[in-house]
């Protein structure tokens, strides 16, 4: 018999659901996962619902929690059945399943985990703060387009680093705001909210142009680490075509 499970797009929501499923020994192939409450990503985080049916107790390794909380950020609904399948197999088939990295499910989850690591890393790298003009105090805003749901995972980094600076990071997948004390999350916004260039951007573009060595053009190597999909949010990327042209004419 099929069991339908409706969850929000969050690790906590999934965790609450699988507690129930595991306690009733529902096989992964008997679960139909559907998404509920689209677009209200951050509301579910305030008070995840507990209680209800708690059933039998089971243990989950810290390693699995680490893996699952990363995979939960992937922008791919396949993640929920995949994580449940791994969890079920850990309980019923092999408690050491995660060691077998050539296993199809394990491999797939590790690839997703890696993609999240990369997305967070690129988040840290490609946010470009712009100072808001005409204010008495320094306030910075940035526009970024993460590939996955990594706003909550990636932005505490900025609070640690720029703790004395007020800032907001806006993305289509959620926003983060730092008031020098607390990091607050809100729902995603559209690109028209992206801030305008400030007075330093010119210097940054000048630096980018000057540090480029036209005698060793390696466009492929650049694109591998500097995916074209991010270029639209990076001010220096407008220079790339002309720098390549200049290098080719040497």
């Amino acid at each position, binding site marked *: 018999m099929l069991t339908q499970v409706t969850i929000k797009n969050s690790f906590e929501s999934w965790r609450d659901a699988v507690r129930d499923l595991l306690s009733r020994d529902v096989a992964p192939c008997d679960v139909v996962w559907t998404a509920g409450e689209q677009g209200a990503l951050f509301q579910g985080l305030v008070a995840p619902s507990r209680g209800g049916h708690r059933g039998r107790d089971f243990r989950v390794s810290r390693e699995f929690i680490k893996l699952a909380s990363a995979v939960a950020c992937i922008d791919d609904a396949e993640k929920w059945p995949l994580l449940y399948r791994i969890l079920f197999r850990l309980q019923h088939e092999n408690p050491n399943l995660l060691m077998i990295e050539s296993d199809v499910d394990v491999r797939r989850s590790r690839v997703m985990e890696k993609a999240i690591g990369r997305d967070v890393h690129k988040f840290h790298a490609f946010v470009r703060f712009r100072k808001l003009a005409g204010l008495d105090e320094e306030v910075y805003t940035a526009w970024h387009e993460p590939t996955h749901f990594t706003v909550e995972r990636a932005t505490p980094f900025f609070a640690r680093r720029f703790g004395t600076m007020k800032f907001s990071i806006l993305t289509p997948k959620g926003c983060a705001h730092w008031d020098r004390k607390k990091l607050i999350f809100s729902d995603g916004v559209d690109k028209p909210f992206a801030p305008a260039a400030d007075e330093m951007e010119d210097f940054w573009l000048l630096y980018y142009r000057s540090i480029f060595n036209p005698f*060793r053009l390696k466009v492929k190597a650049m694109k591998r680490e500097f995916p074209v999909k991010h270029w639209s949010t990076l001010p220096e990327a407008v220079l790339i075509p002309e*720098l390549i042209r200049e290098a080719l004419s040497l």
Partner: protein
Amino acid sequence: MELRRKLEILADAAKYDASCASSGSKRKRADGGIGNTEGMGICHSYTPDGRCISLLKLLLTNVCIWDCSYCINRKSSPIQRARFKPEEVVRLTMNFYKRNYIEGLFLSSGIIQNADYTMEQLVLVAKKLREEEKFGGYIHLKAVPGASKELLLGAGKYADRLSANIEMPVQEDLDRLAPEKTISEIENTMADVKYGLDDAKDRGQKSTFARAGQSTQLVVGASESTDTTILTKAESLYKKFLLRRVYYSAFSPGEYTDANLKKEKTPAMREHRLYEADWLIRNYGFAAHEVTQGLDGGNLDLDLDHDPKLAWALRHRSLFPVDINRASKSLLLRIPGIGIRNVDRIVRIRRFQKVRLEDLARLRVSLSRAKWFIITADHNPDVFKLDRLSLPDTLKRKIDQPQLFASSILTTAVTGEL
């Protein structure tokens, strides 16, 4: 001179130093300050030369009293000269950092007056950043060869990394191309930095001396020195001075390098192979002589057609095939196409089940290179071709995609994949 023009000149002059690493140092943000380092390097941008921008890389000045022929900033070069005021570098660094363009500053300089004066000027900038701005980001300072030990030890208090560039592997090269430099003076500088590192270690965890260690750089292809000479030197530097990294920079004759030097550009692939070989020496248990010995026809440069691990395996086919399910870890590390992380995964997997070709495929092992050299739990038809005379030809470049350019190795240095 206008600040914009200075930035243009002194960034352009700084780009020949390949290092842009910002990893390996941890520092919490100071109360009321800006910036920290969390151990991970971050590449904030990439230029079309495939190199990353992690640090604001500048010369304090491109005025230089030395005349090294491979260097664009040498005394006799007809370029425009400029010099930053220390506060200009501080302002640029802080403004770039607050916008998340960079992880920090890499400050080098031409030699003004003498080594000590130059070093003092560099330290002054770092001191202003740390003490006046409470800057907690990454700082890489050039260790000027010949600067006093006192100054170097002072520099290490503010800097995360120090680097004295050796430039050439042997004194004869320096005599010809950089007559003011000596290997012994540069090594003395490295020894002083190492003293600071050792001393800090002895004093325990609280110490803050150059937490990301020291590195150096060699120019490749401006002299006749072969890869064997270069790698042997690199290996001895790693051992003697506990360097974190040796960088290799392919010489490219530009508009302003000495016209008496070689006209041809050093192939990018040569630089790339040196980085691969260096990686094998540091992480795969290879000795420099193993990577370089027995290169055919008395050619003492690395094989451009095969990566150095594959070239080594082809020269030592009697040691193969290796049984994936039984071999020691150190032997698994010698199989072409299998990286360190996959070796660890294989060791874990085989505790629970036999490893088959399909397992390796799923781990994204480069089977096009590995399959000739291994025995798996299932039938591997290619291993019977191991002794074919034509194998080196079969394995020429077409499968050895030259996609791992030096820059990508630099940037993946943290992850440990080759």
